[in-house]
């Protein structure tokens, strides 16, 4: 069953003769429980595609259905609520709030979902334990290594049990050992818990952990590879 269905997405920037089309009539489906990797060179449009699929940007034309909902028609407030309840994000540079402890960073979306302080704290601790950082709850991001920060970001993304986890070059700022560990964590989430994952990466080695790789070039999908 497809959890994401994107049909004929086009994304254009600028107006008049300065118009630049970054995505050209792209269609893609993602099955529930699938781990999809989007690959391509810089400027190929892979991140732009992910932003459309993850409701962070709105396509110039085309339709996107996530879990049966046409997300293109959502207004800003509804899109924010949809992201909160349905999606999880891991960004390239961890994107933690520097003033909050690891535990509080993870608690944020849980509190926003309406959990009590105590419940959010318990869930946050469990999520931090799950990514292998037990005991690091009170640490500020600055007191954690890059790999640990990315783990906290993954814990934040997963604590609310999202239907889809989007990861935008999650290993880009990490050394190879930490990068490998993060990919293993994401893979295990997919394999052990059936977490749907959409990951953008430019490293073939990490993309091979996915079930399927789509290759992008010049705003179009130019290849697809089913790995398992």
């Amino acid at each position, binding site marked *: 069953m497809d959890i994401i269905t994107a049909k004929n997405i086009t994304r254009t920037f600028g107006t008049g003769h300065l118009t630049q089309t970054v995505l050209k009539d792209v269609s893609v489906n993602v099955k529930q429980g699938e781990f999809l990797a989007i690959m391509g060179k810089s400027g190929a449009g892979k991140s732009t595609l992910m*932003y459309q699929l993850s409701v*962070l*940007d709105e396509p110039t034309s085309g339709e996107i259905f996530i879990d049966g909902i046409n997300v293109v028609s959502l207004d800003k407030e509804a899109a*924010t*609520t949809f*992201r*909160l*309840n349905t*999606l*999880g*994000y891991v*960004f390239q540079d961890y*994107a933690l*709030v*520097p*003033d*909050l402890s690891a535990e*509080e960073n993870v*608690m*944020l*979306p849980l*509190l*926003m*979902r*309406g959990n009590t*302080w105590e419940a959010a704290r318990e869930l946050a601790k469990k999520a931090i334990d799950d990514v292998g950082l037990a005991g690091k709850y009170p640490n*500020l991001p600055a007191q954690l290594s890059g790999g640990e920060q990315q783990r906290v970001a993954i814990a*934040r*993304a997963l604590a609310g049990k999202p239907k889809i986890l989007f990861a935008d070059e999650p290993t880009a700022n990490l050394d190879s050992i930490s990068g490998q560990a993060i990919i293993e964590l994401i893979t295990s989430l997919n394999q052990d818990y059936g977490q749907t994952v959409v990951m953008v990466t430019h490293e073939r080695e990490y993309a091979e952990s996915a079930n399927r790789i789509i290759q992008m070039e010049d705003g179009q999908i130019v290849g697809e590879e089913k790995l398992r």
Partner: protein
Amino acid sequence: MRTIRIGFLLGWRQIQRANIWTTTLIIFVMMLTFLNLIAVSGILVGLIAGAEKAVREDSLGDLIISAKDDEDRILETETIIRQLEAFPEITAFSVRHQGSGVLEANYKERRDLRGERDIANVRVSGIDPIKEEAMTGLSADVIEGEFLDPNEEGYILIGALYTEEYASNFGDVFETVSNIKPGSTVRLTSGQVSKEFIVKGILQSKVDEVSLNTYIPEREFRRLFDRFDRNADQIVMRLAKPEDNARIKEILIANNIDDLAKIQTYEEGKPKFITDIKNTFNILGTFIGSIGIVVASITISIIIFINALSRRRQIGILKAIGIDRRAIEFAYILQAAFYALLGSALGVLLTYGFLIGFFERNPINFPFSDGILVAEPVGTAWRFLSLFLITLIAGFLPASLIVRQNTLNSILGRNK
């Protein structure tokens, strides 16, 4: 509710982790702004309040009895005095007979009888020196010579502004006589009656009713002004509890004293221009202080704007993970509120804990009053509230400007 809770978490942690010196500086600016708002109008009003206080202490007292509008003098003054003596709430009172006369000096040295006489039109008060002293402590205003002795006759106290030496600072505003010293002989004339007096002392006060007055014993006044009915022009009273003056006035009215004279509390009897100037200064002070609020609100806006702008990407990511923009805006409003509250609280502490007492002990020496700092709690509360609200708006607007930007643009650092 969850929005406020998350906003509080974000905002409070930002305050906690902020640079201590930056936070101190912002709070200091807020404190100065608040003080500016309080002090500018407070000192302007304090100038007049100082004058008002001096008039009450040195001249009018807490309750004033004067002639009814259709009478020249207080009727049956002695009956009224007997009644006043029976009131335990009245700690002191002075009966004043008032008139105007011509004061002449240096007439003995004048050789040319066709030449200009050294004269001044003066106000004359006939008093009981003991009662006046108990009422206003007039002897404290004697800057040269001595106070009137109730057992002596033929002596006069002259207000400094009737003497050339002291009034020269004010130019030619006042009519004066020259070369007046204690021991000098002067002549006081009312109508066709003249009497020679020896100057006992020179009086100087910031209250014109003292510095522009001459005092002679009551019995000599009656002889000079041909006032043998003993009816006075003014009776001023000091009460054990000055704030009770309205209540005592009602009691005096209940005793039918208002059939014989007009009874006024100090507030009713004080010169109207004092109230008018006070109100004008208050408006002026508030206006000048408001400029300070504008400056502070701009400062807060810039601080919050830079803070939010430097966290633009973080704000974008918070929105991306589903945090309501109102929670993020609340975080910045909380910071602005924190700066305003702490700065104002310090300002209040400094005003009421130190400045008011300091100016009370060391009043500013103005020519017409001893300026104090006036900060009425109600006025302070309004200023506090206005500063607080304006600061909240100043915090909200720039934060909102950043928070409302497109989420993805914020994350990617794009301008469009």
